[in-house]
């Protein structure tokens, strides 16, 4: 993770928690609420200690009422507070759509700039261990679609902290998308508060053969794929957009213009999704020349099955990403895929209860 660091390693989950802690300390208008934020599991540890430190006025659970609680968050934000509303799964945000799309996104505009909605909505994408159709969705593209919402999906601990602080300080509603499998991953994270601001993508690996964009957890999978590809002489430029709205399409377009190959890996379905946006955005900017080859990978176009044999096939992984990139770079050659053993080594530790 390219950033001025202290050498301190922190887990993604702890980086989030540190961001809350520091921002709540700094600004008394920040509060954290949502189902189960104050129980002993504290959202997998991401809100750990906050109740003890800041008290139940600023850290509290709610009834199971996502729709109204979103409205409450919006109203409180308009009234000058800075709520962080937590959903343990992104799937449950479907209950919050009316308030987010019809009020939060539009409040500043339709009320002529009279009010602001400095709101952070946290949610987690679940994966593996039979989480299934209703506990695994990455629904960020729905939010990207709606002007007035910002969307961010940090893929590492450093960005988790920096993006969270930026999101909390932002005067607009920010949909903050976490990934359950990233929680235990570590990276260098500065102790002092810092921000990773909207609108700047990160080039994670440099390469001239192909541009691979990975969203959320897929940024990590893409980096692993790039390692596999490097072993066979293919050099991929992996880009993590970090913020999806606003999206730094220029950085991606510049890379794709150079490599002339663009592979976008989303942590969701491809249809009318973030990966479509990235390809369309690059094509609009690049024009018909130099002739860029574009492809997308993402969830299989189905609900997420629970059976591990099917679930395995549902997601892109370093092996399938590398194989796809290979064929794009060497269309004349015979297809290649990393050996299963080698691929396995590149895999992420899979999640297995507690759920």
């Amino acid at each position, binding site marked *: 993770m390219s950033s001025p660091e202290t050498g301190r390693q922190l887990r993604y989950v702890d980086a989030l928690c540190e961001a809350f802690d520091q921002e709540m300390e700094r600004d008394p208008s920040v509060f954290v609420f949502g189902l189960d934020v104050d129980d002993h599991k504290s959202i997998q540890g991401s809100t750990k200690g906050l109740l003890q430190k800041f008290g139940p006025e600023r850290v509290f659970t709610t009834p199971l009422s996502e729709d109204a609680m979103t409205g409450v968050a919006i*109203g409180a934000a308009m009234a000058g507070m800075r709520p962080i509303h937590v959903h343990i799964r992104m799937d449950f945000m479907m209950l919050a759509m009316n308030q987010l799309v019809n009020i939060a996104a539009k409040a500043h505009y*339709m009320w*002529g700039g009279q009010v602001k909605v400095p709101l952070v909505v946290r949610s987690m994408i679940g994966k593996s261990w039979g989480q299934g159709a209703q506990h695994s969705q990455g629904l960020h593209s729905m939010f990207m679609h709606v002007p007035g919402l910002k969307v961010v999906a940090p893929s590492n601990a450093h960005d988790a902290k920096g993006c969270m602080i930026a999101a909390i300080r932002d005067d607009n509603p920010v949909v903050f998308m976490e990934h359950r499998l990233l929680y235990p991953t570590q990276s260098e994270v500065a102790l002092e508060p810092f921000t990773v601001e909207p609108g700047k993508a990160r080039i994670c690996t440099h390469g001239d053969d192909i541009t691979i964009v990975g969203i959320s957890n897929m940024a990590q999978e893409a980096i692993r794929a790039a390692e596999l590809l490097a072993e066979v002489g293919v050099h991929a430029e992996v880009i993590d957009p970090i913020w999806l709205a606003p999206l730094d399409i220029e950085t991606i377009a510049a890379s794709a213009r150079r490599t002339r190959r663009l592979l976008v890996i989303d942590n969701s379905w491809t249809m009318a999704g973030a990966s479509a946006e990235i390809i369309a955005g690059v094509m609009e900017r690049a024009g018909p020349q130099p002739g860029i080859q574009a492809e997308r990978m993402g969830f299989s176009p189905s609900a997420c099955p629970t059976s591990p044999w099917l679930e395995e096939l549902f997601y892109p992984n370093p092996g399938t990403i590398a194989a796809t990139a290979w064929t794009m770079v060497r269309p004349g050659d015979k297809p290649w895929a990393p050996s299963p053993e080698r691929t396995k080594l590149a895999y992420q530790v899979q999640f297995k209860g507690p759920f």
Partner: protein
Amino acid sequence: MPKAFAASPADIERVYRAIKRIRRVEEVTADIYPSDKIKSPVHLAIGQELVSVAVCDVLKPGDVVGGSYRSHAVFLAKGGDLNAMMAEMYGKDTGCCRGKGGSMHIGDAAVGVAGSSAVVGTQIPMMAGYALALKHQAKGGVAVVFFGDGATEEGCFYETLNFAALMNLPLLFVCENNGYAIHEPIAKRRARPDALCAIANAMGVPARRVADGNTFAVRDAAGSAIERIRKGGGPEFIEAQVYRWREHVGPNEDFDQDYRCRSEAEPWMANDEVTRLAALIDPAIRAAIDDRIEAEIAAAVTFAEQSPPPKPEELHTNVFA
């Protein structure tokens, strides 16, 4: 007959002025409407003004109100700027939302009118959010949310009742029950049309119904509720029975339509609070009030008509703060 409430002449004059002013704004709006100068759907409050006036009469400046697309009365009763409201309906840059909201989305943050919303029920949890903030601020501020009978059928209404009660929020729920959601009578939408107060009570929000359309009865109910709320007593609920005189949206009457008949409206019109209160005021004083209202409204119309439209670049401002 409505029972008499203790109201001083000053009270009566103030309340009359507020109701009459809203009535006339609505009537003038309806008169202008066929000219197509107002390019916004209008949901008039005619017949229902008394509720906003009665409730806002017991509020303080630091209190905050919020309502639905039918919020002209709430806006004006809480002190929203009439010029800015009229200009908003005209789509002008001087409108309270700079022409971006129209009649359905008026608001005036400076005087505690939160923006109104055209998706039924959405303002209910939003105002609970304001109440939560007011509670944190601990300065005795109260939030009031106005909504129709139809809005009580949305899940967020119940969810908010529970949350408000659980958190002891300084929030007054005011249901303006006009018996209709667009053209559908409440009996087609609710198993127990008369049970709104029972529901609120069961959810933990003390509730009271004012059935007779008397401004001072509503004001009494609101006054004592607000007093308890301000002292930390938690949320309360008022159901005020009213009647909508005009069509759901638009400037006209609609008794010739298929869904209700004038005879249903007549008792309400006969007990019209504008007429009733007017009769309680010295004619000379009343005439002075009325004159001032007309002048104010005429000035607002002129203001709206003469205001410039938004500049094209306004399309892109205020997307993000």
